[in-house]
């Protein structure tokens, strides 16, 4: 029982951190695609959002739909990140990214992406670090579980 519990806790911890790290990496990949699309020329945000899939592009789509439905920039930004499972810090950064997105020039847009990317890189490093620690926790918990098992035997 104890062995099973230790292993389960360790694995849940590791999986959760790994998923968050992978989410952030996916968003950063999407931001790179977004930047490429802007650099490639006269695309509208709607077209870019429609041509691509992923967590972040879904948020972009939601933001644009909310704007078209008459929401203000701030409200639309809130709606866009509502369902996202980022940390408080990440959510704040993402919201300020979306707030004002529709009226930004290409230069301002690139700067916004860079700022957001920098923050996500930092938090993803933390997430990667925690994922590593979680892996260690998992190994330790397996060892502890195994030790308890041997002792009981």
């Amino acid at each position: 029982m104890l062995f099973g519990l230790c292993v389960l806790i360790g694995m849940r911890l590791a999986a959760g951190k790994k998923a968050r790290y992978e989410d952030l990496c996916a968003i950063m990949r999407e931001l790179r695609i977004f930047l490429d699309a802007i650099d490639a020329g006269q695309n509208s945000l709607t077209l870019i959002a429609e041509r691509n899939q992923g967590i972040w592009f879904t948020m972009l789509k939601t933001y644009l739909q909310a704007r078209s439905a008459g929401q203000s920039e701030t409200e639309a930004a809130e709606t866009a990140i509502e369902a996202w499972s980022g940390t408080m810090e990440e959510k704040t950064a993402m919201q300020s990214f979306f707030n004002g997105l529709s009226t930004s020039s290409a230069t301002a847009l690139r700067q916004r992406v860079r700022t957001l990317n920098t923050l996500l890189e930092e938090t993803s490093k933390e997430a990667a670090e925690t994922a590593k620690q979680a892996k260690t926790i998992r190994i330790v918990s397996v060892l502890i579980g195994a030790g308890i098992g041997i002792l009981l035997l």
Partner: protein
Amino acid sequence: MEQWKTYWCALLPPGISEVLAAIDETMLLTEIRLRRDAPMELVFGDSDRIIYGNNAQPMTTEDDLREICARLQAYSAFAWENERRDGFLTVHGCRVGLSGRMYRTDRGVLGFASVSGLNIRIVREMHDCAKPFLPDLSNGGKLLPSLLISPPGCGKTTLLRDLIRTASNGMHGIRACRVGAADERFELSGASDGSIPFDLGVRTDVISGITKADAAVRIVSTLSPDILAMDELNTSRDAMALLDASGRGVTVLATAHGRSWNDLCKRPMMRLLLKERVFERCVVLESIGTISTILDADGKEVGRAI
């Protein structure tokens, strides 16, 4: 409901949409002018009407204008920087002129710090409006190189669009041929988002979004057109591009601002084009629906059309 009405009523704020929806189409609305904290001006050809909001309130506020601009740009301001810098947006084939405070840096004019007014020009496609002109503008089934002149808002672009369509489809006794259109401001094709909402015929290729001169060079060298069409001849570069195309055996169709042959002769680049006989016909449009004069390369009247 007319196509323009459906589009603009959906895009503009409710107060303005209600006024537009009630306009009788026979009145031929040509412009909607919105100004910050001011009533709305509706232009019907030669006359206009000033419309106030409820209790003599202004029709548009600063917030309204900001939101309208965002909608016009499909919430993608970054994609319209060049157009804004030139003072206009072309949406659904309609040119929307901007006024307001612009800013300038060492690198030149960069754009609008705030928009205080919009001039929305309503565009209508008028099929066969060029038909009465064709006997004087063609020879043996071939369109002659022609220049259409008039003050703004008198239908030059509409007439040019129909001439392009006629030549491209081969209609009304005109032999079908390939047409290349240099459409800098997306007004001929209405193609600001890549689609072509206006019918320019089956043999027409359009290059839009770059200067007319640059587009003309590309059209002539890569698309081998029989006819090159250019709306609003403005700069000497445009004139040189037309001269070059004409020298390569391409028939040129163009429009320019002006009220008369004499007005044309006052502009050096026009004098050059007339001297080099780039145009064999010049159509002088006076206003929508009135009789237009057709001149030959020497400025002599050869015909009239409505």
